[in-house]
């Protein structure tokens, strides 16, 4: 038998792959395995049982949570698609004034914390909300936004870019000559759109809609703020696990496992049947902008700007409200910096924690994600496809479930991490890895592999070539990826809320607790700071960012 021999050029990818497998194995697969096994084991972990499932699923309350999560997700996928499709067409094909700014603003909801949007909705349209009270004073009744309507509304406003961005890209990739061919055969423009253009972009639209569905299923913050008595899977799992009265890890694991199964299944469908099926016609001639008659053009402009700006209204509202005076939960119409003063006096530590944890985790995610992205782009084997799947998986895992898994896995035994800062960083890193890996492998795909071969042929080892040539060539992309992971981690709530311990509260936890309690002033100030933390770096680094990258966040 030939001795085990590793080809010289395979050594670096294998080493990187080994580290990645080790990291993901220990901090993703093992915790998920813990969740799954906790769901099928007796409380003392001694025997296999389906009791947990039977007990949870026999209760209407929990069955409803599955139904509610799926219903809300399906409706939100539909509404985002309905909102985003005309908008995408307008951006891709019409001459809308200030289009570049419009695209930038349209991508913003992806980096702004969605639960802040939910909280804004609560402050404006909630039972004692600003708008509600004003309208009530005028005798105009307003429906309740608690439960499904509010949650769907927030999802629509914050998740529509997931459909918008791929659809715009898809529309731009349609070769004009295909449409011209249809028209030369006697098809009217409207029929051409329906029978040629729309089918060509359908995979992009559907893929975006499925991402929306995944996002809604795993989102914790929005339903935590707005659901009231509506049961939602991700929230119920959290409540069962953290449990104010009695914790019930077995039942939490059942809901967690169900959630994993659902989101993983949807991601699988999205990857396997939709994302790969794009009919990129490799646009050789970019379609010229369509000219509309004046009234239609005005209408289109109003629609595009209207949607994009409306989606940002909640965030403007939060920023405005943060400068008003709150006494307890009651709002007074007077300018005040009191909210910030209070936040500063009570939450300096959490602010520092947020910045430190986000920075370390963004760095770690880049440190692991960039080399892994390179390996995925440069080598092809059955192991790399496993690595590809594994590094995409966290996208489909709800933050709460991952965090529950990490707690079960590292609460005792050889490696105890609970209660510290490291476990939060690990959770953050795992959650952002899909984005870092995809973004960096997309950049590597644009770098001709013969550049690296040229360097190696000149006597530079593969590792040094990677560090001295590939990384500098990727630098713009790496920096933009770092900025995006950093800003989204700063507003991470779903895993933090499970994992934080006394000294390691973050700003999101402060805000979450203030929302739960009566500290509306602190909550609004914290929310504003979170908006600022997200916006400022992105505005500074805007030139580096590419809107398309955002849809993997």
């Amino acid at each position, binding site marked *: 038998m030939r001795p085990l021999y590793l080809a010289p050029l395979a050594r670096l990818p294998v080493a990187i792959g080994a580290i990645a497998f080790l990291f993901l194995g220990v901090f993703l697969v093992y915790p998920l395995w813990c969740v799954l096994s906790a769901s099928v084991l007796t409380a003392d972990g001694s025997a296999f049982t389906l009791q947990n499932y039977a007990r949870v699923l026999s209760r209407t309350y929990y069955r409803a949570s599955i139904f509610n999560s799926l219903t809300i997700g399906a409706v939100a996928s539909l509404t985002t698609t309905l909102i985003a499709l005309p908008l995408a067409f307008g951006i891709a094909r019409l001459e809308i004034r200030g289009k570049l700014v419009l695209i930038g603003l349209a991508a913003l909801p992806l980096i702004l914390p969605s639960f802040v949007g939910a909280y804004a909705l609560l402050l404006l349209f909630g039972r004692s909300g600003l708008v509600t009270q004003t309208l009530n004073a005028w005798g105009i009744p307003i429906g309740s936004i608690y439960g499904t309507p509010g949650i769907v509304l927030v999802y629509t406003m914050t998740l529509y870019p997931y459909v918008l961005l791929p659809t715009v890209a898809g529309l731009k990739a349609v070769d004009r000559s295909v449409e011209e061919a249809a028209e030369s055969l006697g098809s009217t423009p409207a029929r051409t759109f329906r029978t040629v253009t729309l089918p060509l972009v359908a995979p992009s639209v559907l893929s975006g809609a499925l991402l929306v569905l995944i996002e809604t299923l795993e989102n914790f913050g929005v339903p935590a703020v707005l659901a009231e008595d509506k049961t939602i899977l991700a929230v119920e799992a959290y409540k069962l696990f953290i449990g104010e009265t009695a914790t019930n890890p077995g039942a939490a694991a059942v809901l967690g496992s169900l959630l994993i199964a659902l989101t993983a299944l949807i991601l699988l469908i999205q990857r396997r049947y939709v994302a790969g099926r794009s009919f990129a016609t490799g646009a050789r001639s970019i379609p010229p902008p369509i000219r509309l008659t004046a009234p239609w053009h005005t209408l289109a402009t109003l629609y595009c700007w209207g949607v994009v700006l409306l989606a940002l209204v909640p965030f403007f509202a939060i920023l405005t409200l943060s400068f008003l005076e709150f006494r307890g939960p009651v709002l007074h119409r007077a300018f005040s910096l009191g909210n910030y003063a209070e936040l500063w006096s009570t939450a300096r530590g959490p602010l520092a924690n947020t910045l430190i944890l986000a920075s370390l985790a963004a760095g770690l995610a880049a440190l692991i994600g960039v080399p892994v992205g390179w390996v995925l782009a440069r080598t092809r084997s059955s192991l790399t496809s496993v690595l590809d799947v594994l590094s995409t998986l966290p996208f489909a895992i709800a933050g709460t479930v991952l965090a529950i898994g990490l707690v079960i896995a590292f609460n005792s035994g050889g490696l105890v991490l609970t209660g510290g800062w490291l476990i939060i960083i690990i959770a953050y890193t795992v959650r952002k890895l899909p984005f870092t890996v995809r973004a960096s492998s997309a950049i590597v795909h644009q770098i001709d592999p013969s550049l690296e071969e040229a360097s190696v042929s000149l*006597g530079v*080892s593969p590792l040094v070539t990677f560090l001295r040539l590939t990384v500098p060539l990727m630098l713009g992309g790496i920096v933009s990826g770092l900025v995006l992971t950093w800003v989204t981690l700063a507003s991470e709530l779903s895993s933090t809320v499970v994992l934080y311990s006394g000294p390691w509260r973050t700003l999101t936890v402060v805000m979450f607790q203030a929302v739960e309690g009566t500290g509306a002033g602190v909550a609004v100030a914290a929310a504003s700071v979170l908006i600022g933390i997200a916006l400022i770096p992105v505005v500074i680094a805007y030139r580096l960012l590419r809107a398309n990258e955002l849809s993997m966040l």
Partner: protein
Amino acid sequence: MSSIAIEGARRSFASVLAVRDITLKIEDGEFFTLLGPSGCGKTTLLRLIAGFAELEAGRISFGDTRIDRLPPHRRNIGMVFQNYAIFPNLTVAGNVAYGLKARHVARADVSRRVEEALALVRLIGLGERWPHQLSGGQLQRVAIARALVIRPEVLLLDEPLSNLDARLRVDMRGEIRHLQQRLGITTVYVTHDQEEALAVSQRIAVMEAGRIEQLGSPEDVYRQPASLFVARFMGTTNVLAGIVAARDGERMHVRIATTTISLPALHDARDGDRLHLCVRPEALRIVRNGEGTKDGEIALTATMANCEFIGPLIRLDLALSDGSPLKLAMLDRPLPPAAAGDRITVAFPLDRLSIFPQAAT
């Protein structure tokens, strides 16, 4: 500088054997070309020498040193890539200095050797330019300078001219050949362009399906193709179908269309065997009225179908009596006085005829 010895090199991708047990010796200082259609394995063989692909079996040595287990960055090769692979983040001088710095050459020597290398490829004074400011031809010169400046043992060129326009391609190939002769560096050149291969090489290996079909000087592979594939691949050729009508000791009578000609026998030829007979269009000449055939010439009668005048060349499309096509090319001759449909006689020297048994399919 050193010779390259390849012994039993084998490499497959998935289930396709890209290089099938090739054994080959490239002499010290030789300009050697791997020629073949795309997918024939020529680039794979070059990448095996460079180390970018791994041998499955066999060995490769530079001189007496076996190198196939060395990683590519320790093989001391100079490689020029099809798309130049110029580092966009470095200046021209930075690109050329890249390999010197990897070898820890002293700083003063680096700038001197970079200058020399740029002078060698006639790019004096362009060291501070950025790659995006250069033309394709200039980029290719930078790539060559970058490969040569490290004084590699062997120079490997992977279709270096295929991204240049036609005229520049002709100039550059002359320059590469000239440079190689001056430096005497062992060079392996990969191309799919037979004219380019003929123009620059000392020896050519014509490859097909992972094997070397023929190895020889440019004149050999063009004039004495070893197989029907080589005959067809090396430029235009007429492939005539013939049948052995009668074997007669050292001679055989072969029927082409309705003419029977006498040829030296293939050693295993038997009556009724089918043959491919290849003759280049430019080997044919028109036998004018009253002219006879010379000694050792074979004459065929054919019908004019079409006459194409393309400047230096005149191309005739003819048809034999059974309708099979025959091409004829003449350099700098007056147009033939024949019109379409006229019968003419053509002749060619026997030694320009290549005969291959038709594979029993």
